[in-house]
Protein backbone atom coordinates (compact mmCIF):
# COMPACT_ATOMS: atom_id res chain seq x y z
CA UNK A 1 0.00 0.00 0.00
CA UNK A 2 1.58 3.37 -0.93
CA UNK A 3 2.17 5.67 1.96
CA UNK A 4 0.63 8.95 0.91
CA UNK A 5 1.86 10.92 3.87
CA UNK A 6 5.30 11.26 2.30
CA UNK A 7 4.68 11.21 -1.45
CA UNK A 8 8.20 12.46 -2.19
CA UNK A 9 9.77 9.30 -0.76
CA UNK A 10 7.58 7.02 -2.75
CA UNK A 11 7.26 8.53 -6.18
CA UNK A 12 10.12 10.83 -7.03
CA UNK A 13 13.10 8.82 -5.74
CA UNK A 14 14.01 5.61 -7.61
CA UNK A 15 13.59 2.39 -5.62
CA UNK A 16 17.33 1.61 -5.51
CA UNK A 17 18.07 5.00 -4.01
CA UNK A 18 15.26 4.54 -1.50
CA UNK A 19 16.74 1.22 -0.41
CA UNK A 20 20.20 2.75 -0.11
CA UNK A 21 18.82 5.70 1.89
CA UNK A 22 17.11 3.28 4.26
CA UNK A 23 20.21 1.16 4.85
CA UNK A 24 20.22 2.03 8.56
CA UNK A 25 16.75 0.52 8.87
CA UNK A 26 17.82 -2.71 7.19
CA UNK A 27 20.99 -2.97 9.24
CA UNK A 28 19.03 -2.57 12.48
CA UNK A 29 16.58 -5.27 11.42
CA UNK A 30 19.14 -7.65 9.96
CA UNK A 31 20.11 -9.73 13.04
CA UNK A 32 16.49 -10.56 13.80
CA UNK A 33 15.42 -11.02 10.21
CA UNK A 34 18.32 -13.39 9.56
CA UNK A 35 17.32 -15.59 12.50
CA UNK A 36 13.66 -15.32 11.55
CA UNK A 37 14.48 -16.42 8.01
CA UNK A 38 16.60 -19.39 9.10
CA UNK A 39 14.47 -20.71 11.95
CA UNK A 40 10.91 -19.75 10.97
CA UNK A 41 10.46 -18.85 7.30
CA UNK A 42 12.70 -21.52 5.77
CA UNK A 43 11.33 -24.31 8.02
CA UNK A 44 7.73 -23.40 7.18
CA UNK A 45 8.36 -23.14 3.44
CA UNK A 46 10.49 -26.26 3.35
CA UNK A 47 7.74 -28.17 5.19
CA UNK A 48 5.44 -27.40 2.30
CA UNK A 49 7.97 -28.77 -0.20
CA UNK A 50 8.96 -31.75 1.93
CA UNK A 51 5.32 -32.71 2.38
CA UNK A 52 5.35 -33.89 -1.24
CA UNK A 53 8.42 -36.06 -0.72
CA UNK A 54 9.63 -39.09 1.11
CA UNK A 55 12.58 -37.99 3.25
CA UNK A 56 14.48 -39.79 6.02
CA UNK A 57 17.22 -37.19 6.71
CA UNK A 58 19.93 -39.49 5.28
CA UNK A 59 19.09 -39.77 1.61
CA UNK A 60 17.92 -36.99 -0.68
CA UNK A 61 14.17 -36.25 -0.55
CA UNK A 62 12.27 -38.27 -3.17
CA UNK A 63 9.25 -36.67 -4.86
CA UNK A 64 6.08 -38.67 -4.23
CA UNK A 65 3.31 -36.24 -5.20
CA UNK A 66 0.24 -36.33 -3.00
CA UNK A 67 1.07 -39.75 -1.52
CA UNK A 68 1.62 -38.40 2.01
CA UNK A 69 -1.73 -36.65 2.02
CA UNK A 70 -3.54 -39.67 0.57
CA UNK A 71 -1.91 -41.93 3.15
CA UNK A 72 -2.89 -39.54 5.92
CA UNK A 73 -6.59 -39.47 5.23
CA UNK A 74 -7.13 -42.94 3.77
CA UNK A 75 -4.68 -45.28 5.48
CA UNK A 76 -3.56 -43.71 8.75
CA UNK A 77 -6.41 -44.24 11.21
CA UNK A 78 -4.35 -42.71 14.00
CA UNK A 79 -3.90 -39.51 12.00
CA UNK A 80 -7.67 -39.24 11.56
CA UNK A 81 -8.07 -39.79 15.28
CA UNK A 82 -5.39 -37.19 16.06
CA UNK A 83 -7.07 -34.71 13.72
CA UNK A 84 -10.42 -35.30 15.38
CA UNK A 85 -8.90 -34.96 18.87
CA UNK A 86 -7.03 -31.78 17.93
CA UNK A 87 -10.22 -30.20 16.61
CA UNK A 88 -12.16 -31.27 19.71
CA UNK A 89 -9.43 -29.93 22.04
CA UNK A 90 -9.14 -26.69 20.08
CA UNK A 91 -12.89 -26.13 19.83
CA UNK A 92 -13.35 -26.69 23.55
CA UNK A 93 -10.21 -25.16 25.06
CA UNK A 94 -9.71 -22.28 22.59
CA UNK A 95 -13.01 -20.49 23.21
CA UNK A 96 -13.07 -21.41 26.93
CA UNK A 97 -9.55 -20.06 27.39
CA UNK A 98 -10.31 -16.95 25.36
CA UNK A 99 -13.59 -16.16 27.10
CA UNK A 100 -12.16 -16.98 30.50
CA UNK A 101 -9.14 -14.71 29.86
CA UNK A 102 -11.49 -11.93 28.88
CA UNK A 103 -13.93 -12.28 31.75
CA UNK A 104 -11.38 -12.84 34.46
CA UNK A 105 -9.48 -9.76 33.24
CA UNK A 106 -12.71 -7.77 33.15
CA UNK A 107 -13.73 -8.84 36.65
CA UNK A 108 -10.27 -8.27 38.09
CA UNK A 109 -10.44 -4.74 36.74
CA UNK A 110 -13.53 -4.10 38.90
CA UNK A 111 -11.58 -4.74 42.10
CA UNK A 112 -9.24 -2.44 43.97
CA UNK A 113 -5.58 -2.18 43.12
CA UNK A 114 -3.80 -4.34 45.69
CA UNK A 115 -6.21 -7.22 45.33
CA UNK A 116 -5.98 -6.89 41.58
CA UNK A 117 -2.23 -7.50 41.48
CA UNK A 118 -2.43 -10.46 43.79
CA UNK A 119 -5.16 -12.06 41.67
CA UNK A 120 -3.29 -11.42 38.42
CA UNK A 121 -0.28 -13.24 39.83
CA UNK A 122 -2.44 -16.16 41.01
CA UNK A 123 -4.24 -16.44 37.67
CA UNK A 124 -1.07 -16.14 35.61
CA UNK A 125 1.04 -18.44 37.81
CA UNK A 126 0.24 -21.67 35.89
CA UNK A 127 1.62 -20.07 32.71
CA UNK A 128 4.56 -18.59 34.56
CA UNK A 129 5.39 -21.95 36.09
CA UNK A 130 5.59 -23.66 32.72
CA UNK A 131 6.34 -27.27 33.54
CA UNK A 132 4.43 -27.52 36.79
CA UNK A 133 1.44 -29.26 35.15
CA UNK A 134 3.02 -32.62 35.95
CA UNK A 135 1.57 -32.13 39.49
CA UNK A 136 -1.83 -33.05 38.04
CA UNK A 137 -0.59 -36.61 37.57
CA UNK A 138 -0.39 -36.92 41.36
CA UNK A 139 -3.74 -35.24 41.87
CA UNK A 140 -5.46 -37.55 39.37
CA UNK A 141 -3.27 -40.55 40.15
CA UNK A 142 -5.12 -43.78 39.32
CA UNK A 143 -4.37 -45.70 42.52
CA UNK A 144 -6.17 -45.21 45.80
CA UNK A 145 -3.47 -42.71 46.84
CA UNK A 146 -4.57 -40.16 44.26
CA UNK A 147 -6.09 -37.02 45.81
CA UNK A 148 -9.23 -37.03 43.67
CA UNK A 149 -9.78 -40.76 44.16
CA UNK A 150 -9.45 -40.45 47.96
CA UNK A 151 -11.76 -37.47 48.00
CA UNK A 152 -14.46 -39.16 45.92
CA UNK A 153 -14.17 -42.44 47.84
CA UNK A 154 -14.56 -40.58 51.14
CA UNK A 155 -17.71 -39.00 49.83
CA UNK A 156 -18.91 -42.42 48.70
CA UNK A 157 -19.35 -41.33 45.08
CA UNK A 158 -17.06 -44.09 43.84
CA UNK A 159 -16.11 -47.36 45.51
CA UNK A 160 -12.98 -48.27 43.59
CA UNK A 161 -10.20 -46.01 42.40
CA UNK A 162 -10.76 -44.65 38.90
CA UNK A 163 -7.91 -44.81 36.37
CA UNK A 164 -8.21 -41.13 35.47
CA UNK A 165 -5.07 -40.99 33.36
CA UNK A 166 -5.15 -44.30 31.51
CA UNK A 167 -8.86 -44.97 31.08
CA UNK A 168 -9.77 -43.44 27.72
CA UNK A 169 -13.22 -42.61 29.08
CA UNK A 170 -11.76 -40.09 31.54
CA UNK A 171 -8.32 -38.99 30.43
CA UNK A 172 -9.61 -36.59 27.76
CA UNK A 173 -11.52 -34.77 30.50
CA UNK A 174 -8.46 -34.60 32.72
CA UNK A 175 -6.34 -33.15 29.90
CA UNK A 176 -9.07 -30.60 29.13
CA UNK A 177 -9.02 -29.45 32.75
CA UNK A 178 -5.24 -29.07 32.71
CA UNK A 179 -5.24 -27.14 29.42
CA UNK A 180 -7.94 -24.77 30.64
CA UNK A 181 -5.92 -24.38 33.84
CA UNK A 182 -2.97 -23.14 31.77
CA UNK A 183 -4.94 -20.98 29.37
CA UNK A 184 -4.62 -17.59 31.05
CA UNK A 185 -1.48 -16.55 29.16
CA UNK A 186 -0.26 -13.47 27.34
CA UNK A 187 -3.74 -12.86 25.89
CA UNK A 188 -5.00 -12.56 29.45
CA UNK A 189 -2.31 -10.02 30.33
CA UNK A 190 -3.17 -8.02 27.22
CA UNK A 191 -6.81 -7.94 28.32
CA UNK A 192 -5.86 -6.88 31.88
CA UNK A 193 -3.79 -4.03 30.51
CA UNK A 194 -6.44 -3.11 27.94
CA UNK A 195 -9.10 -2.73 30.62
CA UNK A 196 -6.65 -0.82 32.74
CA UNK A 197 -6.02 1.72 30.02
CA UNK A 198 -9.65 2.43 29.09
CA UNK A 199 -10.74 6.04 29.19
CA UNK A 200 -12.86 6.61 32.32
CA UNK A 201 -14.80 9.52 30.85
CA UNK A 202 -16.54 7.25 28.32
CA UNK A 203 -18.08 5.28 31.17
CA UNK A 204 -19.40 8.36 32.90
CA UNK A 205 -20.86 9.65 29.66
CA UNK A 206 -22.45 6.27 29.04
CA UNK A 207 -23.96 6.17 32.54
CA UNK A 208 -25.57 9.56 31.89
CA UNK A 209 -26.87 8.26 28.57
CA UNK A 210 -28.69 5.50 30.41
CA UNK A 211 -26.36 2.50 30.53
CA UNK A 212 -27.76 0.65 33.53
CA UNK A 213 -25.50 -2.22 34.51
CA UNK A 214 -22.06 -3.71 34.04
CA UNK A 215 -23.15 -5.90 31.15
CA UNK A 216 -24.60 -3.05 29.13
CA UNK A 217 -21.46 -1.08 29.87
CA UNK A 218 -19.34 -3.99 28.67
CA UNK A 219 -21.28 -4.35 25.44
CA UNK A 220 -21.73 -0.70 24.48
CA UNK A 221 -18.65 0.97 25.91
CA UNK A 222 -15.87 -1.47 26.70
CA UNK A 223 -15.92 -3.93 23.81
CA UNK A 224 -15.80 -1.32 21.03
CA UNK A 225 -12.60 0.05 22.58
CA UNK A 226 -10.97 -3.34 23.00
CA UNK A 227 -10.78 -4.39 19.34
CA UNK A 228 -6.98 -4.62 19.08
CA UNK A 229 -6.67 -6.60 22.33
CA UNK A 230 -9.50 -8.93 21.26
CA UNK A 231 -7.64 -9.72 18.03
CA UNK A 232 -4.32 -10.22 19.78
CA UNK A 233 -5.95 -12.52 22.35
CA UNK A 234 -7.52 -14.47 19.50
CA UNK A 235 -4.16 -15.04 17.79
CA UNK A 236 -2.63 -16.26 21.01
CA UNK A 237 -5.63 -18.51 21.75
CA UNK A 238 -5.65 -20.06 18.29
CA UNK A 239 -1.93 -20.68 18.24
CA UNK A 240 -2.14 -22.20 21.70
CA UNK A 241 -5.25 -24.26 21.10
CA UNK A 242 -3.87 -26.04 18.03
CA UNK A 243 -0.45 -26.58 19.58
CA UNK A 244 -1.83 -28.87 22.30
CA UNK A 245 0.15 -32.02 22.87
CA UNK A 246 3.04 -31.64 25.30
CA UNK A 247 0.75 -31.51 28.34
CA UNK A 248 -1.26 -34.45 26.99
CA UNK A 249 1.87 -36.56 26.63
CA UNK A 250 3.17 -35.58 30.06
CA UNK A 251 -0.10 -36.39 31.80
CA UNK A 252 -1.60 -39.35 29.96
CA UNK A 253 1.58 -40.86 28.57
CA UNK A 254 2.88 -41.12 25.04
CA UNK A 255 1.13 -42.69 23.26
CA UNK A 256 -1.98 -42.46 25.44
CA UNK A 257 -4.17 -45.55 25.75
CA UNK A 258 -6.22 -46.02 22.55
CA UNK A 259 -4.63 -42.75 21.37
CA UNK A 260 -7.47 -41.03 23.22
CA UNK A 261 -5.52 -37.79 23.81
CA UNK A 262 -3.28 -38.06 20.72
CA UNK A 263 -3.07 -34.80 18.75
CA UNK A 264 -1.69 -33.63 15.41
CA UNK A 265 1.33 -32.13 17.19
CA UNK A 266 2.14 -35.44 18.87
CA UNK A 267 1.55 -37.35 15.65
CA UNK A 268 3.94 -34.99 13.88
CA UNK A 269 6.57 -35.37 16.62
CA UNK A 270 6.13 -39.13 16.51
CA UNK A 271 6.93 -39.29 12.78
CA UNK A 272 9.41 -36.40 12.82
CA UNK A 273 11.62 -37.07 15.83
CA UNK A 274 11.14 -40.80 16.47
CA UNK A 275 10.50 -42.49 13.12
CA UNK A 276 12.36 -39.89 11.01
CA UNK A 277 9.72 -39.98 8.28
CA UNK A 278 10.20 -36.27 7.65
CA UNK A 279 8.11 -36.10 4.48
CA UNK A 280 5.08 -37.49 6.25
CA UNK A 281 5.71 -35.37 9.37
CA UNK A 282 5.92 -32.27 7.16
CA UNK A 283 2.60 -33.12 5.54
CA UNK A 284 1.03 -33.32 9.02
CA UNK A 285 2.60 -29.94 9.83
CA UNK A 286 1.16 -28.43 6.65
CA UNK A 287 -2.33 -29.67 7.58
CA UNK A 288 -1.88 -28.09 11.03
CA UNK A 289 -0.66 -24.79 9.52
CA UNK A 290 -3.62 -24.79 7.13
CA UNK A 291 -6.18 -25.31 9.89
CA UNK A 292 -4.60 -22.56 12.00
CA UNK A 293 -4.53 -20.02 9.16
CA UNK A 294 -8.12 -20.80 8.20
CA UNK A 295 -9.32 -20.37 11.79
CA UNK A 296 -7.42 -17.10 12.09
CA UNK A 297 -9.00 -15.72 8.92
CA UNK A 298 -12.48 -16.67 10.16
CA UNK A 299 -11.95 -15.22 13.64
CA UNK A 300 -10.49 -12.04 12.20
CA UNK A 301 -13.64 -11.61 10.08
CA UNK A 302 -15.86 -12.26 13.10
CA UNK A 303 -14.02 -9.73 15.27
CA UNK A 304 -13.82 -7.06 12.56
CA UNK A 305 -16.86 -5.27 13.98
CA UNK A 306 -14.84 -4.36 17.07
CA UNK A 307 -11.86 -2.85 15.29
Amino acid at each position, binding site marked *: *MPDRSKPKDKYSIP*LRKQIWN*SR*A*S*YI*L*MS*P*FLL*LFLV*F*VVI*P*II*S*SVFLSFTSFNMLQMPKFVGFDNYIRMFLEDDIFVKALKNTLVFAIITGPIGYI*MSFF*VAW*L*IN*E*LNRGLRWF*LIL*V*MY*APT*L*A*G*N*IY*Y*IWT*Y*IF*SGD*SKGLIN*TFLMNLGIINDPVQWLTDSKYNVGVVLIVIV*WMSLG*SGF*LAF*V*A*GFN*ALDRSYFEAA*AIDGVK*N*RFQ*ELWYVTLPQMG*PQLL*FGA*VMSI*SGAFAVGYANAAITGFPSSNYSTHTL*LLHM*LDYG*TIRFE*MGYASAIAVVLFGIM*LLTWILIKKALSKF*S
Partner: protein
Amino acid sequence: MRKLQYFKDRKKVRLSRSFGGTFAIFMFLVIIGVFMALPIVYSIVQSIKPLEEIFAYPPKFFVKNPTFDNYVQVYQLCQNLWVPLSRYVFNSLFISVLGTVVYVFIASMAAFPLSKHNFPGKVIISLVIVWALLFRPEVTGVAQYIIISKLNMINTYWSMLLPPLAGTFGVFLMMQFMETAIPDSLLEAARIDGAKEYRIFFSIAMPAVKPAWLTLVIFTFQSFWNATGVSYIYDESLKTLPSVLTNISSGGLARSGASSAVAVILLIPPIIIFIISQSSMTETMAHTGLK
Protein backbone atom coordinates in the same frame (compact mmCIF):
# COMPACT_ATOMS: atom_id res chain seq x y z
CA MET B 1 -22.75 22.65 49.64
CA ARG B 2 -22.72 22.81 45.87
CA LYS B 3 -19.47 20.90 45.82
CA LEU B 4 -21.06 18.19 47.93
CA GLN B 5 -23.99 18.05 45.53
CA TYR B 6 -21.51 17.64 42.68
CA PHE B 7 -19.87 14.69 44.33
CA LYS B 8 -23.26 13.13 45.01
CA ASP B 9 -24.09 13.49 41.32
CA ARG B 10 -20.78 12.00 40.40
CA LYS B 11 -21.56 9.06 42.58
CA LYS B 12 -24.86 8.68 40.81
CA VAL B 13 -22.99 8.51 37.55
CA ARG B 14 -21.15 5.42 38.79
CA LEU B 15 -24.35 3.81 40.08
CA SER B 16 -23.92 0.78 37.86
CA ARG B 17 -21.71 -0.69 40.60
CA SER B 18 -24.00 -2.52 43.00
CA PHE B 19 -22.54 -4.03 46.16
CA GLY B 20 -24.14 -7.40 45.41
CA GLY B 21 -22.56 -7.39 41.96
CA THR B 22 -19.11 -6.64 43.32
CA PHE B 23 -19.50 -9.36 45.92
CA ALA B 24 -20.61 -11.89 43.28
CA ILE B 25 -17.59 -10.98 41.14
CA PHE B 26 -15.31 -11.40 44.09
CA MET B 27 -16.72 -14.84 44.93
CA PHE B 28 -16.48 -15.94 41.31
CA LEU B 29 -12.83 -14.84 41.14
CA VAL B 30 -12.10 -16.61 44.41
CA ILE B 31 -13.43 -19.88 42.94
CA ILE B 32 -11.32 -19.54 39.78
CA GLY B 33 -8.36 -18.38 41.87
CA VAL B 34 -8.57 -21.47 44.08
CA PHE B 35 -8.70 -23.70 40.98
CA MET B 36 -5.62 -21.91 39.61
CA ALA B 37 -3.67 -21.87 42.85
CA LEU B 38 -4.43 -25.30 44.35
CA PRO B 39 -2.10 -27.36 42.13
CA ILE B 40 0.73 -24.91 42.77
CA VAL B 41 0.08 -24.86 46.51
CA TYR B 42 -0.09 -28.64 46.40
CA SER B 43 3.33 -28.91 44.77
CA ILE B 44 4.82 -26.55 47.36
CA VAL B 45 3.26 -28.63 50.15
CA GLN B 46 4.36 -31.88 48.52
CA SER B 47 7.93 -30.58 48.28
CA ILE B 48 8.22 -30.23 52.08
CA LYS B 49 6.50 -33.51 52.98
CA PRO B 50 8.60 -36.22 54.61
CA LEU B 51 8.57 -39.59 52.83
CA GLU B 52 6.22 -41.27 55.30
CA GLU B 53 3.61 -38.58 54.72
CA ILE B 54 3.92 -38.95 50.96
CA PHE B 55 3.18 -42.67 51.35
CA ALA B 56 0.54 -42.18 54.06
CA TYR B 57 -2.87 -43.65 53.45
CA PRO B 58 -5.27 -41.93 53.10
CA PRO B 59 -3.22 -39.10 51.51
CA LYS B 60 -3.50 -35.71 53.18
CA PHE B 61 -3.38 -32.42 51.33
CA PHE B 62 -1.47 -30.62 54.07
CA VAL B 63 1.84 -31.40 55.71
CA LYS B 64 2.33 -32.28 59.40
CA ASN B 65 6.11 -32.33 59.86
CA PRO B 66 7.64 -30.10 57.19
CA THR B 67 11.17 -30.99 56.11
CA PHE B 68 13.71 -30.02 53.45
CA ASP B 69 14.70 -33.65 52.83
CA ASN B 70 13.27 -33.57 49.31
CA TYR B 71 15.52 -30.69 48.32
CA VAL B 72 18.51 -32.60 49.67
CA GLN B 73 17.32 -35.66 47.77
CA VAL B 74 17.21 -33.69 44.49
CA TYR B 75 20.81 -32.70 45.06
CA GLN B 76 21.88 -36.27 45.81
CA LEU B 77 19.93 -37.80 42.92
CA CYS B 78 21.57 -35.45 40.45
CA GLN B 79 24.99 -36.06 41.98
CA ASN B 80 24.65 -39.84 41.80
CA LEU B 81 22.64 -40.51 38.65
CA TRP B 82 23.36 -37.68 36.25
CA VAL B 83 25.53 -34.58 36.61
CA PRO B 84 25.69 -32.25 39.64
CA LEU B 85 22.66 -30.03 40.18
CA SER B 86 24.82 -26.93 39.92
CA ARG B 87 25.56 -27.84 36.30
CA TYR B 88 21.85 -27.82 35.40
CA VAL B 89 21.38 -24.55 37.26
CA PHE B 90 24.34 -23.06 35.40
CA ASN B 91 23.02 -24.24 32.02
CA SER B 92 19.56 -22.86 32.75
CA LEU B 93 20.84 -19.51 33.95
CA PHE B 94 23.40 -19.22 31.15
CA ILE B 95 20.88 -19.91 28.39
CA SER B 96 18.06 -17.88 29.95
CA VAL B 97 20.09 -14.79 30.77
CA LEU B 98 22.12 -14.70 27.55
CA GLY B 99 19.06 -15.53 25.44
CA THR B 100 16.95 -12.88 27.13
CA VAL B 101 19.55 -10.13 26.75
CA VAL B 102 20.20 -10.92 23.09
CA TYR B 103 16.53 -11.29 22.22
CA VAL B 104 15.48 -8.03 23.86
CA PHE B 105 18.20 -6.27 21.86
CA ILE B 106 17.60 -7.76 18.45
CA ALA B 107 13.82 -7.60 18.80
CA SER B 108 13.97 -3.91 19.74
CA MET B 109 16.43 -3.21 16.93
CA ALA B 110 14.05 -4.81 14.45
CA ALA B 111 10.97 -3.13 15.91
CA PHE B 112 12.40 0.40 15.79
CA PRO B 113 12.57 0.80 11.99
CA LEU B 114 9.35 -1.17 11.54
CA SER B 115 7.45 1.29 13.70
CA LYS B 116 9.29 4.55 13.04
CA HIS B 117 10.96 4.47 9.62
CA ASN B 118 9.66 4.42 6.09
CA PHE B 119 11.43 2.05 3.74
CA PRO B 120 10.61 -0.29 0.86
CA GLY B 121 9.30 -3.61 2.17
CA LYS B 122 8.07 -2.30 5.51
CA VAL B 123 4.44 -3.26 5.00
CA ILE B 124 5.17 -6.81 3.93
CA ILE B 125 7.67 -7.44 6.74
CA SER B 126 5.23 -6.14 9.36
CA LEU B 127 2.49 -8.33 7.94
CA VAL B 128 4.67 -11.45 7.96
CA ILE B 129 5.65 -10.76 11.58
CA VAL B 130 2.01 -10.60 12.64
CA TRP B 131 1.11 -13.78 10.74
CA ALA B 132 4.06 -15.58 12.25
CA LEU B 133 2.55 -15.02 15.72
CA LEU B 134 0.32 -17.97 14.84
CA PHE B 135 3.21 -20.41 14.55
CA ARG B 136 4.35 -21.37 18.01
CA PRO B 137 7.74 -23.07 18.30
CA GLU B 138 6.02 -26.38 19.08
CA VAL B 139 4.27 -26.37 15.73
CA THR B 140 7.36 -25.61 13.66
CA GLY B 141 9.42 -28.03 15.77
CA VAL B 142 9.97 -30.79 13.23
CA ALA B 143 10.79 -28.37 10.44
CA GLN B 144 13.26 -26.59 12.74
CA TYR B 145 14.78 -29.90 13.69
CA ILE B 146 15.85 -30.48 10.07
CA ILE B 147 17.48 -27.04 9.88
CA ILE B 148 19.20 -27.41 13.24
CA SER B 149 20.65 -30.78 12.34
CA LYS B 150 21.78 -29.51 8.91
CA LEU B 151 23.58 -26.67 10.71
CA ASN B 152 25.27 -29.26 12.96
CA MET B 153 23.81 -27.66 16.05
CA ILE B 154 22.31 -30.78 17.56
CA ASN B 155 23.59 -31.30 21.09
CA THR B 156 25.05 -27.80 21.47
CA TYR B 157 23.95 -24.73 23.41
CA TRP B 158 23.17 -23.14 20.04
CA SER B 159 20.17 -25.41 19.51
CA MET B 160 18.56 -24.06 22.66
CA LEU B 161 19.65 -20.45 22.18
CA LEU B 162 19.03 -19.62 18.54
CA PRO B 163 15.54 -20.94 17.57
CA PRO B 164 13.68 -18.99 20.31
CA LEU B 165 15.49 -15.83 19.19
CA ALA B 166 13.56 -16.03 15.92
CA GLY B 167 10.14 -15.65 17.58
CA THR B 168 8.12 -12.65 16.44
CA PHE B 169 6.25 -12.07 19.70
CA GLY B 170 8.84 -9.65 21.09
CA VAL B 171 9.20 -7.71 17.84
CA PHE B 172 5.43 -7.36 17.69
CA LEU B 173 5.26 -6.18 21.29
CA MET B 174 8.02 -3.59 20.82
CA MET B 175 6.54 -2.40 17.51
CA GLN B 176 3.17 -1.72 19.09
CA PHE B 177 4.71 0.15 21.97
CA MET B 178 7.24 2.20 20.01
CA GLU B 179 4.60 3.39 17.58
CA THR B 180 2.84 5.38 20.30
CA ALA B 181 5.50 5.86 22.97
CA ILE B 182 8.18 7.59 20.89
CA PRO B 183 7.13 10.99 19.54
CA ASP B 184 8.21 11.55 15.93
CA SER B 185 9.18 15.13 16.73
CA LEU B 186 11.83 13.87 19.15
CA LEU B 187 13.38 11.70 16.42
CA GLU B 188 13.26 14.57 13.93
CA ALA B 189 15.01 16.87 16.37
CA ALA B 190 17.76 14.35 16.94
CA ARG B 191 18.21 13.87 13.18
CA ILE B 192 18.52 17.63 12.65
CA ASP B 193 21.19 17.65 15.35
CA GLY B 194 23.05 15.16 13.19
CA ALA B 195 22.56 11.97 15.23
CA LYS B 196 22.89 8.68 13.33
CA GLU B 197 19.96 6.24 13.44
CA TYR B 198 21.97 3.80 15.59
CA ARG B 199 22.62 6.50 18.17
CA ILE B 200 18.98 7.54 18.08
CA PHE B 201 17.99 3.95 18.69
CA PHE B 202 20.26 3.47 21.69
CA SER B 203 20.02 6.86 23.36
CA ILE B 204 16.47 7.97 22.53
CA ALA B 205 14.29 5.04 21.53
CA MET B 206 15.44 2.47 24.06
CA PRO B 207 15.20 4.70 27.15
CA ALA B 208 11.74 5.83 25.99
CA VAL B 209 10.39 2.28 25.87
CA LYS B 210 11.83 0.95 29.11
CA PRO B 211 8.49 -0.50 30.32
CA ALA B 212 8.18 -2.41 27.07
CA TRP B 213 11.54 -4.10 27.24
CA LEU B 214 11.08 -4.88 30.93
CA THR B 215 7.91 -6.69 29.93
CA LEU B 216 9.73 -8.45 27.15
CA VAL B 217 12.36 -9.53 29.68
CA ILE B 218 9.64 -11.34 31.64
CA PHE B 219 8.18 -13.17 28.65
CA THR B 220 11.52 -14.07 27.16
CA PHE B 221 13.11 -15.21 30.39
CA GLN B 222 10.05 -17.30 31.18
CA SER B 223 10.10 -19.10 27.83
CA PHE B 224 13.86 -19.76 27.90
CA TRP B 225 13.69 -20.84 31.53
CA ASN B 226 10.90 -23.36 30.92
CA ALA B 227 12.31 -24.83 27.71
CA THR B 228 13.44 -28.44 27.98
CA GLY B 229 15.23 -28.75 24.64
CA VAL B 230 14.27 -32.44 24.63
CA SER B 231 14.87 -33.35 21.03
CA TYR B 232 17.96 -31.23 20.47
CA ILE B 233 20.13 -32.14 23.45
CA TYR B 234 21.11 -35.65 24.55
CA ASP B 235 24.24 -34.86 26.53
CA GLU B 236 23.23 -34.73 30.19
CA SER B 237 25.81 -32.04 31.01
CA LEU B 238 24.19 -29.62 28.53
CA LYS B 239 20.64 -30.11 29.78
CA THR B 240 18.66 -27.59 31.82
CA LEU B 241 16.67 -27.69 35.05
CA PRO B 242 13.29 -28.60 33.48
CA SER B 243 14.86 -31.82 32.21
CA VAL B 244 15.73 -32.73 35.82
CA LEU B 245 12.02 -32.44 36.53
CA THR B 246 11.27 -34.83 33.67
CA ASN B 247 13.98 -37.22 34.85
CA ILE B 248 12.82 -37.26 38.45
CA SER B 249 9.06 -37.24 37.95
CA SER B 250 9.31 -40.42 35.87
CA GLY B 251 10.27 -42.14 39.16
CA GLY B 252 6.66 -42.38 40.38
CA LEU B 253 5.19 -41.65 43.79
CA ALA B 254 8.44 -42.22 45.71
CA ARG B 255 9.98 -39.32 43.80
CA SER B 256 6.95 -37.03 43.98
CA GLY B 257 8.49 -35.08 46.87
CA ALA B 258 11.74 -34.56 44.98
CA SER B 259 10.04 -33.60 41.72
CA SER B 260 7.85 -31.10 43.55
CA ALA B 261 11.03 -29.65 45.04
CA VAL B 262 12.43 -29.13 41.52
CA ALA B 263 9.14 -27.59 40.42
CA VAL B 264 9.29 -25.13 43.30
CA ILE B 265 12.91 -24.21 42.50
CA LEU B 266 11.82 -23.68 38.88
CA LEU B 267 8.94 -21.48 39.94
CA ILE B 268 10.97 -18.98 41.97
CA PRO B 269 12.95 -16.97 39.34
CA PRO B 270 10.04 -16.23 36.95
CA ILE B 271 7.82 -15.17 39.86
CA ILE B 272 10.49 -12.84 41.24
CA ILE B 273 10.96 -11.23 37.82
CA PHE B 274 7.21 -10.97 37.37
CA ILE B 275 6.70 -9.24 40.70
CA ILE B 276 9.55 -6.80 40.10
CA SER B 277 8.27 -5.64 36.74
CA GLN B 278 4.52 -6.15 37.02
CA SER B 279 3.64 -2.46 36.94
CA SER B 280 5.53 -1.80 33.73
CA MET B 281 3.86 -4.89 32.32
CA THR B 282 0.34 -3.44 32.29
CA GLU B 283 1.59 -0.27 30.72
CA THR B 284 3.16 -2.20 27.85
CA MET B 285 0.47 -4.74 27.29
CA ALA B 286 -2.08 -1.95 26.91
CA HIS B 287 -0.35 -1.18 23.62
CA THR B 288 -0.52 -4.79 22.51
CA GLY B 289 -3.23 -5.14 19.98
CA LEU B 290 -3.79 -6.00 16.36
CA LYS B 291 -5.26 -3.36 14.13
